[in-house]
């Protein structure tokens, strides 16, 4: 084929025609198959995959719903709180897969109270495993660098020592979720991966001052499940807290008010920002728990509009006294 011969043989012509035809057929078929007469939709999707909202993990039995325990030792107040609610067996059945959501939001040491105290996380993990839980997952999407936040807050070490699995947020764990009745959680990335196959969800958080929402407690703790540029929601903070109360219906929430952050929240940074309140709240009703915990910060439930909004959304009651909480003291 180096020199073009003046005459083309019939055989050569047919081969060439067949090759040309095949090229045209492939190009034509591909063009028709891939043809898109419309332009693609204009905006980017927020998350790589989407899925259903999270299931409801709340307990619907008639047992006591809230316990307020005073005492200095977090492990003992936690144990007493669970006992007052009927024992850990009410919440954890053998074989359960449990997810704990602490507040690991910031890369600060535990003494500064900006994150859930590692002692409570550790005690809760141990109690769950002792009650026969198959596995305990601890996860959060911190504000600060995830690795540093989990390590420096002491939560990583405490959880791992007690036998829990730590899950740091990775892109693949986020799913776009649209929450019915929410104007804000629409096609928004949620840290939903760690919740797959989970039987029990427990929120564990500190009690802290917050400039925008007045206070950050068990409901705002779920903010840590939001992905994307979630800070946008701060302009409608009460609504996002209400929506989060609808997104996550936990089995139990623990509010650790042993020390509370009275000012400079939610990051703190100095021991002066903390005050000793020696109170731990265990509650099946996160709204009631937050309504009571607000009083530890010197605020009234009426000061926090999102409490009434969350209550109206069916997430609990802001009238915590109506639950007749068990009040006990550990010395």
């Amino acid at each position, binding site marked *: 084929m180096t020199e073009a011969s003046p005459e083309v043989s019939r055989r050569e012509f047919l081969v060439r025609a067949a090759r040309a035809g095949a090229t045209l057929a492939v190009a034509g078929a591909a063009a028709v198959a891939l043809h898109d007469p419309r332009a693609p939709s204009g905006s980017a999707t927020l998350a790589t995959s989407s899925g259903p909202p999270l299931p409801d993990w709340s307990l619907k039995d008639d047992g006591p719903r809230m316990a307020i325990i005073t005492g200095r030792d977090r492990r003992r107040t936690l144990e007493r709180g669970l006992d007052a609610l009927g024992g850990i067996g009410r919440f954890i059945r053998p074989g359960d897969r449990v997810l704990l959501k602490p507040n690991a939001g910031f890369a600060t040491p535990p003494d500064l109270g900006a994150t859930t105290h590692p002692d409570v996380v550790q005690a809760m993990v141990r109690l769950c495993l002792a009650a026969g839980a198959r596995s305990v997952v601890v996860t959060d999407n911190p504000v600060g660098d995830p690795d540093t936040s989990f390590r420096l807050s002491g939560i990583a070490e405490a959880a791992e020592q007690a036998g829990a699995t730590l899950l740091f947020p990775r892109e693949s764990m986020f799913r776009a979720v649209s929450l019915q009745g929410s104007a804000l959680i629409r096609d928004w990335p949620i840290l939903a991966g760690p919740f797959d196959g989970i039987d029990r969800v427990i929120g564990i958080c500190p009690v802290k001052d917050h400039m925008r929402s007045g206070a950050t407690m068990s409901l705002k703790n779920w903010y840590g499940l939001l992905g994307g540029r979630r800070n946008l929601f701060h302009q409608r903070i009460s609504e996002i807290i209400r929506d989060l109360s609808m997104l996550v219906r936990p089995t139990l929430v623990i509010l650790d008010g042993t020390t509370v952050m009275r000012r400079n929240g*939610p990051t*703190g940074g100095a021991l002066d920002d903390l005050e000793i309140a020696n109170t731990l709240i265990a509650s099946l009703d996160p709204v009631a728990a937050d309504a009571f915990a607000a009083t530890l910060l010197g605020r009234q439930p009426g000061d926090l509009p999102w409490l009434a909004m969350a209550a109206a959304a069916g997430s609990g009651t802001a009238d915590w006294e109506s639950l007749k909480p068990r009040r006990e003291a550990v010395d």
Partner: protein
Amino acid sequence: MRIVTVRRVSQGFFLGWFLWFCAVTAFGEGRFQARGWPLNLFLQLDPLPALATTLATGTLYAGLLWALATVVLTVVLGRAFCGWVCPFGTLHQAIGWMGRRLRRGQRARVNQPSRLQGIKYFVLAAILASASADLVRGSASLAGHLSPALQAVAAAAACLIAFLAISRLVRSRSRAAAWSIAMVGLWALAGRVLPGDEVFASTDLVGWLDPIAFLTRGMGTVVLPLLDRSVGLFFSAPRHVQGGALLGILLAASLLANLAIPRFFCRFLCPSGALMGLLGRNALWRVARTTASCSQCAACDADCEGACQPSGAIRTSECVLCMNCLPACKETVITFRTRPSEAGEHPLPDASRRGVLLSLASGFALAPILRLGAEAGAATPPALVRPPGALPEPQFLDRCLRCGQCMRICPTGVLQPAGVETGIEALWTPVLNNRLGTSGCQPNCIACGSVCPTAAIRPFTLDEKLGRAGHHATGPVKIGCAFVDRGRCLPWAMGRPCIVCQENCPVSPKAIVLEPWVEALREGPWQVSGVDAGTVRLAGAPLRPGRIAGGDYLIASALMPGLGLSLRDNTTDSVVLARPEDAANLAIGTRVEIRVRLHRPYIDPVRCTGCGVCEHECPVAGLRAVRITSENESRDPRRSMVRE
């Protein structure tokens, strides 16, 4: 075992360690974390960074003393580091081997010495000259403190030393004498006339082309961030690198060039290899031919890594001691011994005297040209936010190797290689980019200062960084200051509540202060058209249902005392009062406005450390509404904004 096998084992051994030190990135004690590994060992063994920073600063910092080991090795054996230790050289050799031609003749042709191999000596001369400006001027002006008689003695001594050196290069004694007097005169003149200001200063540009710095930077900013995406072992979150495209292309180009010419970088560009070529000119052992003539089969040249022509008069400064020629020679006339080759040898590189002088002059002029824009002084780019512990900019530039160790170990990935927009001289030095990384500079982290091999970022303690335990007087280390862009800030410009910057400020008390502010919605005003049990109907612009839910909004008339009545919800044409009894204050027909309660952020420059957490968190996704610039950084008191 054959000598070539031993060499390969050695290369594999050192490459393995180098890669391991690159892989153990994170600051910590875990299996894949830095622990106590000597992460900088190869940067320290490389003699060029040690020499250049010593010329620029007058001292040999800490672990850079390891370079002495390589100097000893090189003086005794020649460029053994290049052929046996250097991980970059090993990669070049491996890739060159993959791309080698099959025919021996072709290979031998590619491996013939080229005049272009002199380029690396010019690069070396320019780097060392630009690093030694302060030294030349400083040492020359020292003589000014001596009495005239002593000055004459010093000048004579300098002339004598110069004559001894130059007479080895120049055959004619009179010309050598003339040259030495001229050079000492030039040196004295330089000491007198050069102003010694921020422009006429030394700069350490060694990192751009130093092989270990080049590869370390490439690993940390290109290879590991890409590899981590699939294996997830090296960083706690996927890492992004600003200007990574250029870094990646240069790394790939430097490696792929070996397919055309083996050890392309080593032969033509490597300034460290050039330095070792000079250091090894008196090597006690060298590759040599045992007979004056041979069959000239070129088997030795075919696999010669250094292009030093072992088949003829060997260029010892180019020989990287790969030892490929020893087993290749079927006549067994090539060996490694103390006696010079019978075929003769070229101990000095093939770099013209004129070229070297020109390179020295260019290098000497380079720093002033780079500094003419005063990027290291009066016109420091605002975006040039250096990590905590960074020395004042001129001293920083005297030391930074651009190796990227600080960026690699930074737990949040906020430390990034600077591009050219902060000045060409600062290219690839560490700066903070708060839009990248998982957070800003973490208050409780001292990793960058602990890892820096040259103390461009000096080691600092946590107490010092946080300004506690004896460091109260100097306060916390500030790397810059936050500024609110009022035209972009939600509460300042758009009537939307937001306190995200203040909320995330990790300083206590917070460096961002919020001032309450109330303003009317621009859709208003409205007129009350009906009041019914806490619901107020409004005539006017329609409202989006739920727009004012959440407790941030008030309704007020001009006559009403106070800010207004709290609202809790709305429909298109009505609002719901938070307290129904407030309805008594609103009569039908009243002109009302809806007000929003805002908090406007202000920065306290005394407390702000410039950590950048606020900028990272600001919900304005593009150009953030709160941004850090380098004003107020503690390392340069002239740049502080407030005096207290």
